């Protein structure tokens, strides 16, 4: 199983989103294929699970959810992790 995943070259956006969703069931998740080649992604995840955690701890949670997918099919992932509380804060400026 593990070897099968590592030998895969790409992963569809839906599958990336499902893997993240399995670890963050109540999260708002957007996955964008940056290159149209199913291997360079950007993901924006809004979840209460990130509350009280540093950016590195938040990203570690996402990488754990993706597991071996980061070793083969996903070549690059730009991550944005957000808590619902931060989202409702006023943006400032204007």
């Amino acid at each position, binding site marked *: 199983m593990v070897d099968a995943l590592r030998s895969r070259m790409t992963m569809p956006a839906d599958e990336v989103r499902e893997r993240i969703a399995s670890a963050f069931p109540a999260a708002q998740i957007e996955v964008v294929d940056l290159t149209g080649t199913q291997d360079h992604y950007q993901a924006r995840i809004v979840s209460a699970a990130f509350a009280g955690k540093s*950016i*590195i701890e938040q*990203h*570690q949670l996402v*990488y*754990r959810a*993706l597991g071996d997918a*980061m*070793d083969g099919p996903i070549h690059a992932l730009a991550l944005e992790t957000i808590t619902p509380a931060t989202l409702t804060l006023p943006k400032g400026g204007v």
Partner: protein
Amino acid sequence: MNTGIRERIVATIQSKPVVLFMKGNKAVPQCGFSAQVVGILTRERVDFLDVDVLADPELRQGLKEFSSWPTFPQLYIGGKLVGGADIVTALSQSGELGRLLAAS
């Protein structure tokens, strides 16, 4: 990950306050992101241990699991993972990296 590699990683990150696992070494980085972090640490005038993961595939794979972090470079300060190139760059710009290094 086998126990041996875990013990090696723990011993390495505890051997110096600042340890950079990178592609290549600080004199000759083999990747732009690794070079970027070497540049930042050099500007911070910090003494750090550089470990070339390209020379050690077992260590490279073990670190991905140990750190729950899939890419290199990986900067450890005081035995804790601080981040890769993006996070280290952001921390450097905000001045927080200097504080972390001073506390290490």
